[in-house]
């Protein structure tokens, strides 16, 4: 009964490839997020969606494109992968958009670009 699930868990790919990461939450939450955690463990928000609508779009290269087909899913597509994209990508969800709504994180997708 995983609350926030991500696939794949590991992703190893070559530079220049296009890849997608999928996220699903079964908590009935309205808000979903994508975070990037670099090798130094720094956690940085990339995008946030509320009821399928984009509400946060940080300074992220436009090679990264999120898509929310419905409230329970938020996918991340990355074009033309670069070495610097290697990181752990976390999906999270919360009941609402305000910070005091607890964010529930998925297990992460470990992306390695060779």
């Amino acid at each position: 009964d995983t609350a926030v699930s991500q696939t794949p868990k590991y992703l190893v790919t070559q530079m220049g490839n296009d890849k997608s990461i999928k996220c699903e939450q079964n908590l009935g939450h309205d808000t979903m997020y994508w975070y990037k955690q670099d090798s130094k463990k720094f956690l940085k928000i990339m995008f946030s969606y509320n009821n399928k609508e984009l509400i946060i779009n940080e300074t992220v290269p436009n090679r990264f494109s999120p898509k929310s087909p419905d409230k329970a899913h938020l996918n991340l597509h990355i074009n033309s992968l670069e070495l610097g994209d290697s990181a752990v990508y976390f999906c999270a969800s919360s009941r609402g958009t305000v910070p005091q709504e607890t964010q529930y994180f998925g297990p992460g997708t470990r992306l390695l670009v060779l």
Partner: protein
Amino acid sequence: QQQVKQSPQSLIVQKGGISIINCAYENTAFDYFPWYQQFPGKGPALLIAIRPDVSEKKEGRFTISFNKSAKQFSLHIMDSQPGDSATYFCAAGLASGSRLTFGEGTQLTVNP
């Protein structure tokens, strides 16, 4: 622009000791301060949170101390246990806003 600064980067404590992690923020409008705990290979999970109307919040062995005038808050872990070994993130946000700003993280190791 780093709005939440966390220290130390890493911390080693003996079992039974007190672990203290500090955070400082810049934006005086922040009014929600959570701490998240992340075990290796897992996503972060909310540990404890505080609003600025109180100076301290305690949940079990975990206590947040908050100093509004100094724009600082800290996490104290009493009677630290090896199972507390994890990375801890402080964060800050506006209750009316839409995002959390995370600190850089502290890797805590509790030796048996």
